[in-house]
């Protein structure tokens, strides 16, 4: 259904163009789940926003193809793409606090999607909004529908965002760090809700997070991104149980487990390189324990480690045999 081919994204800065995402490819069948993991700055959100072309047009340059039902979203006229947005592909964002318009009621904001895409009248849209609020388990939906966003808690706001996103029963939902701004118990509830709605509506979901554990639990397939590149692409279980790229391993070790002392929480040493100042070789080499001289010299390719499992790490390619 969705097929991203060689997507690269550049942003304009004072001194020229800077490559934020480079040569990313992945595919997503209908009614499936995909997770995208990486630290902030890895390009995962940029990739997600590219699918709906939500970057500021005047400062962004995109290349490659994003095929959706056989049409290239990147080549599509804005007008046609607008029909897809919110109807076939919907998106929810990290910060429910700022993602809702403070001067419009939540009913108005949910109903707007329906009025645009399904031509509902104001009353019809209002009634559907109440149903949708019910669907995302907001208690007392009938009276809540006239509330303004600032009256709701963070978790409730994210539920409203979800209600807005699923209003037209989209076939693809992109959830960009949907739980990061929420506290832990609410996080679990939101993910549970997403899982249930996915079943109910039968849509595909792309879940983006910095938390490998969360992503692996939710999705069937996971891609790991680092410094704008795809570094590992495998079934979720594989990435979680036997990650091959050293960066994926680092992410995995960084997940706090309940029985461990939080103060000894692992963090990958070093920082993600600035987009304008990436190393000549492997992007991860400066932080990598396995790095060899060759890693610093030339950028490594993405190679098939096992059937359906790709990594961008020549060291692992030659030293490790696929487990089976």
């Amino acid at each position, binding site marked *: 259904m969705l097929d991203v081919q060689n997507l690269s994204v550049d942003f304009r800065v004072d001194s020229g163009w800077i490559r934020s995402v480079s040569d990313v490819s992945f595919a997503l069948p209908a009614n499936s789940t995909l997770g995208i993991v990486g630290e902030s700055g890895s390009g995962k959100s940029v990739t997600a*926003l590219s699918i*709906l072309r*939500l970057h500021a047009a*005047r400062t962004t340059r995109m290349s490659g193809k994003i095929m959706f039902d056989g049409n290239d979203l990147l080549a599509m006229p804005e007008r046609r793409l*607008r*029909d*897809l*947005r*919110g*109807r076939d592909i*919907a*998106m929810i*964002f990290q*910060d429910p606090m*700022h*993602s*809702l*318009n*403070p*001067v*419009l009621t939540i009913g108005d904001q949910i109903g*707007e*999607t329906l009025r*645009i*895409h399904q031509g509902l009248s104001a009353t019809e849209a209002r009634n559907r909004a109440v149903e949708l609020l019910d669907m995302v388990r907001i208690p007392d939906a009938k009276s809540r529908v006239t509330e*303004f966003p*600032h*009256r709701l808690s963070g978790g409730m706001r994210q539920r409203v*965002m979800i209600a*807005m996103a699923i209003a037209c029963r989209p076939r693809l939902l992109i959830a960009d760090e949907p739980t990061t701004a929420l506290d832990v118990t609410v996080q679990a509830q939101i993910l549970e809700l997403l899982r249930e709605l996915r079943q109910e509506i039968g849509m595909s979901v792309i879940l983006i997070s910095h938390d490998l554990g969360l992503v692996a639990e939710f999705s069937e397939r996971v891609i790991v991104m680092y410094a704008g590149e795809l570094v590992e692409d495998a079934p979720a279980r594989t990435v979680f149980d036997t990650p091959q790229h050293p960066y994926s391993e680092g992410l995995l070790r960084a997940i706090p487990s309940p029985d461990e002392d939080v103060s000894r929480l692992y963090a990958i040493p070093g920082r993600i390189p600035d987009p304008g100042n990436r190393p000549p070789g492997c992007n991860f080499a400066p932080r990598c324990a396995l790095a060899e001289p060759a890693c610093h010299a030339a950028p490594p390719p993405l190679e098939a480690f096992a059937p359906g499992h790709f990594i961008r790490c020549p060291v692992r390619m030659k030293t490790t045999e696929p487990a089976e």
Partner: protein
Amino acid sequence: MTKLIAFRIAQAIPVMFVVAVLTFLLMHLLPGDPATIIAGDAADQESIAQIRRDLGLDQPVPVQLWLWITNLAQGDFGRSLMLNQPVAEAVMQRLPVTLSLAFVAFVITIPVGIALGVIAAVWRDTWVDSAVMILALVGVSVPNFWIAILSVILFSVTLGWLPSAGYVPLHDSFSGWLASLLQPAVVLALFQIGYLARMTRSAMLEVLDQDYIRTARAKGVTPMRTILKHAFRNSLMQVVTVSGYILSLLIGGSVVIEQIFAMPGIGRLLVQAIMARDYPVVQGTMLLLGFAFVFINIVIDIVYAWVDPRVRYD
């Protein structure tokens, strides 16, 4: 909401008190003896003493302040020397002129300034944006009385389209009223249009950067609707905040403009009073204008609260 209004009014009372004290001090603590200044250079001791007695200047300053405040509380703003009538009466007679002028200028400024600002923000970094911003910059850099004179030469003297001076009261003739106000009001508005356009543009740009604008786009909302429904309503709040300030500036600016178009408003009264050293009028006019500005601020705060649901419902 009612609580907010009550709170704002309560907050305004000390400010009005301070305004009253300041206008009193303005005329008393600055160098020179007011009685001598009022009497003029040629006056003898006798008449100076008379003026001093008339104005209560022979009393100690705290007593004078007390009298000033208590008189104010009773609605007594003093008595004009040149007009031989109460200051409040003199001001009230001229108030409609100034308010008409400021009001018409305001009605021109708000839509034009906002429209230009929104247009500039939507087409940012294009020639449209540059043109609007250059226009706005010129608007805030050109002295309005100079433009007024040039405008009179062009529209009144050369083309003869509009009256060059005078004021027609609203109850005499609406079209006459409007014709007499049009030229001064447009000139007066120019400066504020530039200011408002710049404000609106920066408010719009800030709002267009917000996450909820991205949400709207992700829903498939058209750019036009995104701007008008999602962005504009939010930037409107900042625009409301400055609109009170703009109205005050328009009233202040009319002091100068009335002079050029020979309009019998408060500004003209103030300047005449300064020339005639009629300082009860200067004092009283400043005070009443000060009260008016405080009142405008209260109204704006209330409008703001009404526009912003975060304030309205809390």
